[in-house]
Each structure stands twice: as structure tokens, then as C-alpha cells.
């Protein structure tokens, strides 16, 4: 939120192909596209399966668990809306479902970041009709 309480970050413009993904987030679910032709799971949403060229799409809920593949720690506000978040970690994560995602990682000291660190997805409703994913450390089993 900005000082005036108005959400001033960049917002997504869902397409017909991605609308179920964004609607899933609003229900605190991470939905991934599953090809109805060959069964391959893909991310981010796109109209066609690059493996079998089917445009029949189903949606499956991801477990939300994954491990860190890479990351960056941002110290510069490239948009006014992120200024109060600085510094923030953006993690590239391999989900158990085989695809990757990128989101802010919270609750992990920068010094402990490493490839393979277990994390899981959490959800945050930032404004009416918009829920975004972020990442937190996975509790030890």
C-alpha cells in the first residue's frame, strides 16, 4: 500500500488463457495448466502445449512445495510501488510438479539462501480481487 492506502504496484491483466490461474490465487490455490492431450504440466499459462500442440487445457492444484533454484535481492525501486518493500528477495523455485515459479521470498535471512533450500507457497490478498503468491521457508518435516 502507498502512504495514502491506495494499492500502487503493477497489477496483472489476465487473458482468457490465464484467468483460471488468477481466479485460483483468489481461492488461495496455485493452479497449473495440464495438457489434456499428453498430460504435461506447464507454467506460466499459454494456449498451446509445445509438446503435442493440443489446446485442450485442464487445471491442477500444485502442492505448493519446492526448492530454490536461484534468486536475486533487490535494493533499488524500479517502480514507486515497491519502495517500502526494499530490500526484497525474488526467488526462482522448482516446484514438486516440475515447473518453476518466481515470487518474493519472506522469512529467510539472505545469508542462508542456497540452491535446494525447501520453500512453500503462501498467499496474500493485496487488494480486492487480487491475491498474489509469495514464498516462505518450508517447516522441517
Amino acid at each position, binding site marked *: 500500500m502507498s502512504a495514502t492506502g491506495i494499492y500502487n504496484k503493477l497489477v496483472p491483466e489476465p487473458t482468457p488463457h490465464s484467468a483460471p490461474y488468477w481466479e485460483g490465487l483468489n481461492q488461495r490455490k496455485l493452479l497449473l495448466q495440464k495438457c489434456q492431450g499428453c498430460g504435461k504440466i506447464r507454467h*506460466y499459462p499459454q494456449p498451446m502445449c509445445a509438446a503435442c500442440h493440443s489446446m485442450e487445457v485442464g487445471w491442477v492444484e500444485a502442492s505448493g512445495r519446492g526448492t530454490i533454484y536461484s534468486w536475486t535481492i533487490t535494493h533499488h525501486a524500479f517502480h514507486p510501488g515497491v519502495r517500502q518493500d526494499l530490500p526484497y528477495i525474488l526467488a526462482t523455485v522448482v516446484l514438486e510438479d516440475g515447473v*518453476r515459479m518466481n515470487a*518474493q521470498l519472506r522469512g529467510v535471512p539472505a545469508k542462508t539462501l542456497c540452491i535446494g533450500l525447501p520453500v512453500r507457497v503462501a498467499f496474500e490478498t493485496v487488494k480486492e480481487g487480487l491475491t498474489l503468491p509469495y514464498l516462505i521457508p518450508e517447516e522441517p518435516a
Partner: protein
Amino acid sequence: MSLREKGAITGVGETAYSKESGRSVLSLQLEASLKAIEDAGLKPTDIDGVIPYASGVVAEDFITNLGLPDLRFSAVTPLGGASCVAAVQCAVAAIASGICNHVLIPVGRNGASQGRIGTRVQYMPQFRVVGEFEMPLGAIAPAQLYAPMARRHMELYGTTSQQLGEIAVSTRANAILNGNAVMTKPMSIEDHQASRMISDPFRLFDCSLESDGACAIVVSGADRARDLRRPPVVVMGVAEGHPDSPSVITQRPDLTRLGVAKAAPRAFAMAGVSHDDIDVAEIYDCFTYIVMCQLEDLGFCKKGEGGPFVESGAIRLGGKLPINTHGGLLSQAHMVGMNHIAELVRQLRGEAGKAQVADAEIGLVTGYGDMGDGSVAIMRRG
């Protein structure tokens, strides 16, 4: 049909580079274009092909202002920073097929005084996918989108920030020798390490400049080039390559492999030369790490060995492979890599002044753009 030696760079033109031109992008591009045409010994009316850069300036602007009576070829090569070298491939292909004779390739921008990068990319179609899925989460600018590639390289291969710094420091030393560079203050590794963190591991001095200005080249058929005013610089081999997962770096199977890895073997095979034949290289340097990764993907060293390679002094003037002898995007100006082509032409003509690589006969130039598009050309003194 191969494009080998079918085309040559016959003219180059540059405006002054600055942080605030005070002029329109079109007027900058027209000035650079006139200079390039004059350098080639041509008249504007000889231009019958144009490949404009995606800067709001279109082919019609060149017809209207240069008074071109019969433009026979126009195209765009939308590969971000890989556009300029990809445009050379496009121009040589058009010439070799007989469509046209002299192709003008202009680039120009007010990158410093208008529309900074974090804002610009939000409107670029190549950034549409990250625009929907990553920018709302705070991954907005190229520095943030590219940094995980560098971090992965550091974790896998032990690459250090100091090794990235060597690229910034050697490039600055070259800029100081150039009469038309924005950054002319000497830089040490300590200066690099003290520069503020932008998006880890990229410090301020790992990032390229934002600049105002324009640069243009003329590409002509190799046979006609011999009769023009200046010694031609012959395009021996040229190729473009698109990385896996070209719209989103996050999903790329190998985060340390760029599109140029696919293009390089094609360009070397077309040129019929080996890496040891390359006397000088102008490597697209939007970020220090992108230079290191390209040196590996081009085959100048093995994957993962880019750090020790640059640390050895190989890329400095007098080293095994001097690179970015003009100061690059890091220290001369961000002219989308057209200034890299202009510098390679100067080197191969023997006109690079204090930065001249002795007896430079064969050189290489690359482009890198958007989420990892690549392009590479190998040229020789004609």
C-alpha cells in the same frame, strides 16, 4: 545459398552521446544516418533498404526526410539488444537475394532523458509474459530478471563479484581512450565493489548506462562495397539465436545458456574461421555477467570458466581477446549495441585510435536482448 561474404559494412555514423540530447529521437537518427551514408561515399538517394529500430521511428520517416525515391526493402528485427546484429543478417539476406543494394540500419534513443528502462519494458511486447506473471510480484526491470542467471552461475561455478567487476573496470579503461564516451572517470575493482547494490549480484557498475544519441550503419553488397569510399568490412558469418523459454527466464531449462549459444556455431561455420582467428570482439554488455556468459556460449572458454578467463586479463587491450574497445554499453553509451558494430568497423579499418588492436584483421560482434535473444557476426578487413 550461404550469406558468407555476401555483404559488407560500408559506412558508420554516430552522434555525440550524452545524458540529455535535447533533441527528438528522429533528428538524432537522421543525423547518424546522414553521417553513415556520407562515410560510405553514397548519396541518401542510393539507400534502397532500411531496417528501423523499434523506437517509434519507422521506414516512412526515412523516406520522407532523406527523400528516398524508391525504397524497395524494409523490415524490423525485434530482438531487443540483439536487434542490430540480427538486422545485419536481415540486410545481407535482402541484398544477397537481389531485393536491394544499400541498407541503412539506424538506432537512436533518448534513453537517459526520457522513459527509463524500468518503465519502458512494461510496454514492450517481448516483456508481455513477465509483465503479467512476474512484474506484479516485484520482478520489474531487466536487472532483476537477469540477476538469477548470474546468481546461478556464481553458485554452480564459484564466479565472484570481483570477476564481474573486471569486466566493468576493463571496459571503463577503454572508454577513457574513446573521444565519444559518456563515462571517462577511471574505475578500480574497489570502486566497483563500493558501488551500491541494485539487484544482487548486480551492483551499479555491473549495469549499463542509459544514454541519448544515435548510431547508424550502411550495409552494401560485397561486390559494390569495393568501389565505395572506405575500405569495406566484409561480413564473413552472421546468425541469430533464440534461447529456450524465450519469454520467461524463470522457466529456462539451463539458466546459464543464452540464445547466442545456438547462433555461434552457425556464424563460425559460415565464416570458416576458428576462435583463435578472432583479433578483437565487441560483446553486448547490458550487464557484466551477460558478457561473461556470452564469452562461454561463444566458445572462447568453457562453461563456468568465464570468471578465471576475464580475471586473467584476456579481455583487456593487449590481452588474448580484447573486448569492448570503445567502452561498451557500460561506459561509452547505451546505443543498443550499434556502437559495438561501429567500433568493430573502426578496428578493422585501423581507425580505432588509442584503442586500436594491432593488426586487427578479423573481429566478432554480438547482440543480446530481451530474455536472452542472441546474435553474432564475424567480420574481416576488406
